[in-house]
């Protein structure tokens, strides 16, 4: 009987992997950026009239930042540029994340999508999501339809 089988041999590794993942998830490597977390991390604040969504995006040019809204899904995308024309071996220290990123967020239903506004100051993106005013209940009139359509001809 084989003592060691491949099928079983990988399971402890998978368990270990999961445990390491859990450990790493608690460690904040860089400020705000953690393993298994989507980039950029966002905070959402609520006011009486609106929601505010903020994200820290230092080093992103405002013209390279895209904010799109479609069918209740807010998509923000852009890229973080490293210093241009600097070879990798010139770096003595490299801790700042770089590269393209994209994130989509589903918005609550009662948002006035057309009144969305975004501003970018000091590397912080702030998106204003105005709440829609409470909708009035609307009566839907019921009319007598043509009985010929509604009934099923059983003959």
């Amino acid at each position, binding site marked *: 009987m084989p003592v060691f089988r491949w099928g079983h041999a990988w399971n402890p590794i998978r368990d270990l992997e999961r445990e390491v993942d859990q450990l790493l998830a608690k460690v904040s490597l*860089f*400020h*705000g950026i953690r393993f298994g*977390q989507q980039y950029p*991390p*966002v*905070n*959402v*604040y*609520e*006011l009486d009239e609106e*929601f*505010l969504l*903020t994200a*820290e*995006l*230092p*080093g*992103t*040019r*405002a013209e390279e930042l895209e904010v799109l809204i479609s069918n209740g899904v807010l998509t923000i995308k852009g890229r973080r540029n*490293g*210093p241009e024309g*600097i070879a990798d071996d*010139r*770096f*003595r*220290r*490299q*801790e*700042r*994340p770089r590269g393209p990123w994209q994130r989509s967020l589903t918005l609550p239903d009662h948002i006035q999508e057309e009144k969305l506004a975004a501003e*970018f*100051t*000091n*590397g*912080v993106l*702030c998106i204003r999501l105005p709440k829609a005013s409470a909708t009035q209940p609307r009566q839907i009139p019921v009319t007598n339809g043509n009985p010929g359509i509604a009934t099923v001809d059983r003959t």
Partner: protein
Amino acid sequence: MTNQIVPRSNSTGPIPPLEYPVDQVVFTPPIDIFETADGLVLQADLPGVSSESLELQIQDNKLSLFGRVSLTIPPEARLIHQEYQVGHFLRSFILSDEVDHERISAKLNQGVLEVILPRLSKPEPRRIPIQIV
């Protein structure tokens, strides 16, 4: 170059120590340091810090930066979902002797601080004339 958080009690000297509220969270900002033809360039991510609220100080050979984050969020706003924490930024560096302290310059653009650390220019070799007596 080393990086370390300078304890508040440690920063004594002729220049007044950097003041920061100890009750608030202070973060170590991520940095890049790279070499150019003229010296070194340091870049640090300081989102939410404006040029008025950034303190950059050189004492002896230690460069310290402290960025105060000013939130644009009205105080009555309730935080309903949080993925990152907001706090001030603090980090300090030991400069090597090859940096010309007098010519250090810095600029802040959209939350990124760039500090130019020019290399100390070596004096040109000088020919010493020999007098014939």
